[in-house]
C-alpha cells in the first residue's frame, strides 16, 4: 500500500469497524468494552504534532458519538487519550529517539513497546470514559475496575489484530 495513504487507512478502518460492527460490543456484563476506533488513534503516526493528534481524536470521537448516540462521551474520552499520546510516546521513546520511518506498530517498535503504550493509553481512555459514564461516586470503583479489565482485554485483542494484520518488519 502506498505509504502516504497507509496512516489514513490505519485510522479510518478501525473507525469503520467500530461504527459498523463493534458499537454494541460490550462483553462480560460490561467488563469488556471493545473500542475498536481506539486502534486507529493508537496508529496515528508518531511524528504527528500534538495539536493534530487532538483534532484527529476529536473528529474520531465525534463520529463514534454520532453513530452511537452517546452525545460527547467518546469525543471527550478520545480527546483525553489524544492528550496523552505525545506524552506516552515521549516516555516510551528509545534512548536515541524515534526514527522518521518508525510507526506505532508491533512490527516497527516491538511487542513490549506496543503493549505498554496500548495498555496505558487505553486505560487512560477507559478510566475517563467509565468515570463519566458512571457519574456517581458509589459506582466509580466498579467503573475503574471495569476500565482496567477492559483496557487489558482490549490490549490483548489489539496485539492479536496487529500480529495478524501487520507485515513483519525489522524490529528496533
Amino acid at each position, binding site marked *: 500500500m502506498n505509504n502516504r495513504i497507509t496512516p489514513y487507512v490505519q485510522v479510518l478502518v478501525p473507525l469503520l469497524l467500530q461504527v459498523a460492527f463493534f458499537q454494541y460490543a460490550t462483553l462480560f456484563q460490561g467488563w469488556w468494552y471493545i473500542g475498536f476506533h481506539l486502534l486507529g488513534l493508537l496508529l496515528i503516526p508518531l511524528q504527528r504534532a500534538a*495539536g493534530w493528534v487532538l*483534532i484527529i481524536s476529536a473528529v474520531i470521537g465525534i463520529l463514534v458519538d454520532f453513530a452511537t448516540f452517546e*452525545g*460527547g462521551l467518546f469525543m471527550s474520552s478520545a480527546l483525553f487519550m*489524544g492528550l496523552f499520546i505525545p506524552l506516552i510516546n515521549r516516555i516510551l521513546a528509545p534512548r536515541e529517539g524515534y526514527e522518521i520511518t518508525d510507526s506505532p506498530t508491533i512490527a516497527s517498535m516491538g511487542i513490549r513497546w506496543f503493549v505498554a503504550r496500548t495498555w496505558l493509553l487505553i486505560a487512560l481512555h477507559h478510566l475517563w470514559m467509565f468515570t*463519566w459514564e458512571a457519574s456517581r461516586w458509589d459506582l466509580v470503583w466498579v467503573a475503574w475496575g471495569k476500565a482496567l479489565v477492559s483496557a487489558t482485554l482490549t490490549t490483548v485483542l489489539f496485539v492479536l489484530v496487529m500480529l495478524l494484520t501487520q507485515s513483519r518488519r525489522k524490529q528496533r
Partner: protein
Amino acid sequence: MRNLWNLIAQYHVALLFIVLQGVALSWFVSSHGYPRGKWVKRTMEWQGSWNQTRSQWLRLADLDQLNQELLAENASLRAELFALENGDDRTQIGSAEVIRSTWTGTANYFVLNKGIADGIAVGQGVIQGSYAAGKIIEVSESYALGLPLVNQEIEWSARINAEGPVGRLIWDGHAINRGTLLDIPISAQFSPGDPVLTSGFQGYFPAGMVIGHVAEDPTEFDGQFLSVPVVLAADFRSMRYVEITDIEDRNDIEAMSSQLSPKAP
C-alpha cells in the same frame, strides 16, 4: 498583542484540549440522564444563587435610588409644610447625602454629595429629619463641606420657644448631643423640655426650626445672663440623608447686615 499570540502559540495544545473537551463534556452532560440531572441541578443551584445575589444587589441599587427620590420628595413636602405652618414661602428645601462626617473631634465637619451644580451654596442650612444640624461653609462643583452644630468654632443663633429670648448656642466639645445656650436674660420664662428653635437671624435656617430642647440639668448664672443646657435633637452619629434649606433672599439680607455688623445674632 504579540505576547498574547506567543502565549497562545506556546500553550496551543492545552488550549485546544480545553476548548474541545469543553464542547465534548457540554454535549455529554446535556444529553445524558443522570449526569444531566446532576449537572442541571448543580447549574440551577449556582445560577439560582448567582441570580439571588444579583437581584439583591439590584434591589440595593434600587433602594438607593428610591431613597434619593424619597429624600427629594420629603424635602419638597417639608418645604410646603413649613410654608403652611409658618406662612414662610421663601424657604426652599433640597436633599443631599452625607458622604463623610466626623463627630469625635472638636472641629467636626461633614461632606455632602451635592455641590454648586445642584444648587448648593455657602450659608445654606442643613437639617436632619426636621432638626437643624449644621451649615454649608464651602462648595465645589459636586460636593459641599459643612459644619455641624457640634463644632466648637462656631456659634448659632437660637431662642427658647417661638417667642422667647434669643441667645448664642455653642457646643463645649464634650457630649455629642449637648449644647449650651448663652446670653439668656434672667427674666426669661422657660422650663426643661421647652423647645430650642432657630431664630432665623443668621440666614442659615428659617426661624422656628427645632434645634433641641432645654435639658433637665441646672441652668448656670454668670451674674448677668443664664447659660441654659440644651439637648440637641439631631443625631450626628447617624447623619446620612440630610436636607438643605435655602432662604430666597438670604444673600440680600446678609449683604445688608454685613455692612452694619459682621456677626450675628
